């Protein structure tokens, strides 16, 4: 398997806190790679560095063979690296369809057109509608994002990330705060995306992680203590002690 993403020796400190302490792992093309770890392990810090929202103190990130360590978040996004946010981050004053159409537009890179109404531009709205139906939001497409439910916000997050047609999807706790039913729907959606895309999944929901991931990295206090298949992670003594608990 070719590596789409290679992370080497990634380090980031906030004062005395070493949020990322020499993190290294590879993600193959088409792989779904989960990152798990207790609260405060530095999972969101890791995602932010991968997405380009945080600059690492040291280390390198290679994406599709290119060193992207110093690229800004918008540049990385245009290269095919999309993220969803742990805390819902959409454009509340716009409809669901507009939100996704904006994602399509950002990726197309044609934002310096000043005259034709964007909301009637089928080159934006058609792909946006397709993605919305994929995540199951078709009936809600004309609702303002501010008025969508929590679960729908999470679906919209994924739709926006998808609409940028990424090669690598960074999902920061897509199931956070969801009810059982909503979680099941999200797992089914991500299951359908698996293989078509390379996914890095940060998630607390172990059911989702073990059903979706090809490999799992366990992050504890800013360090990766193990990277392996779900079965081996389940069996790993150190991981059980550090995180999963004896009953896992």
């Amino acid at each position, binding site marked *: 398997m070719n590596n789409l993403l290679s992370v080497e020796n990634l380090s980031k400190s906030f004062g005395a806190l070493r949020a990322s302490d020499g993190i290294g792992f590879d993600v193959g093309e088409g792989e779904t790679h989960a990152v798990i770890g207790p609260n405060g392990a530095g999972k969101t810090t890791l995602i932010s560095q991968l*997405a380009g*929202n945080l600059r690492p103190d040291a280390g390198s990130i290679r994406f599709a063979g290119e060193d992207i360590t110093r690229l*800004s*978040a*918008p540049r990385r*996004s*245009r290269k095919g690296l*999309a*993220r969803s*946010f742990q805390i819902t*981050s*959409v*454009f*509340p*004053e*716009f409809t669901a369809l*507009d939100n996704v*159409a*904006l*994602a399509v*537009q*950002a*990726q197309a*890179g*044609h*934002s*310096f*057109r*000043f*005259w*034709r*109404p*964007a*909301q009637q*531009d089928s080159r*934006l709205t058609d792909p946006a509608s397709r993605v919305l139906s994929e995540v199951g939001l078709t009936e809600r497409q004309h609702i303002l994002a501010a008025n969508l439910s929590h679960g729908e916000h999470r679906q919209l997050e994924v739709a*926006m990330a998808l609409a*940028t047609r990424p090669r690598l999807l960074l999902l920061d706790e897509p199931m956070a705060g969801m009810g059982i039913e909503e979680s099941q729907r999200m797992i089914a959606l991500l299951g359908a995306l698996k293989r078509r895309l390379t996914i890095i999944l940060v998630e607390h929901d172990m059911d989702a992680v073990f059903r979706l991931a090809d490999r799992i990295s366990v992050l504890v206090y800013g360090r990766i203590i193990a990277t392996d298949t779900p079965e081996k992670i389940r069996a790993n003594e150190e991981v059980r002690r550090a995180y999963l608990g004896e009953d896992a």
Partner: protein
Amino acid sequence: MKKKIAFWAVLVAALILLPPLVLAVKQPYYVDLVRRIMILAIAAISLDLILGYGGLVSFGHAAYLGVGAYAVGILAFYGVASGWAHFAVAIGASALVALAIGAVSIRTSGIYFIMITLAFTQMLYYLGISLAEFGGDDGMRIKTRSRFPLVDLGDPVTAYYVAFVLMLLSAFIVSRIVNSRFGMALRACKSNDARARALGFSPYPVRLIAFVIAGGLCGLSGALYANHTNYITPSLMSWLQSGELMFMVILGGMGTTAGPVLGAFALLLAEEVLKGFTEYWQVILGPLLVLSVIFFRHGLAGIFSRHE
């Protein structure tokens, strides 16, 4: 939608009919008053592009009003009378100044952005005061009004209709821009900057271009203003003028097409009426403005579009 069309229809009809009506009752003053309001409405429309749609709280928008007006004044001073030259230089110079100010200030945000735009404009204000050749503090008379073939800006009624058409055109242009791809990007960056970046938008060039467009459009307003008063002073660039433009936008409704127009009319008409009652009119206008902001959260335009 219907309400919006009705609003514009009523406004357009009223403004077209106003000059013959007030001239029939021998009150030509009102032609001048409304012309002034429409010229400043253009400045408010331009400010709304960056303030209402872009979320850039520029507290120095009067700079471009001043640059536009001084462009006309200085060209006329050196004997250039061509209106095309006046207006092209006014718009171009304002856009250039906006490019320079924007390039620096848009790197900051929040309170710093407000203070930097204010500081730049104060610099221009003091520059105006120090230019003794162009009247300094006292200002200068415009030697010759902008001359156009067929259109005489010296005629009050002609100038009125020119301001009227340009005001409508400005509102139309801005409404096209904010609904274009560019406008969607601009509004997205205002709505959620982090999200916009994550999607691949680069806010800086988007905001800077909007800032330059707003500056150029405000320069047009300045050029009209110079022709309107026939006399320009540095006070056109003072922070009071910047504040008044901001107030028009906020009072009328930020991020709406009708808002800045409504705001300009409401603020300047209220000023006019109160001045008729007392010389301490600001004491009444101040609290009225505070109340209007509290009760009309979405500005006056919000009254027309509440149920949409």
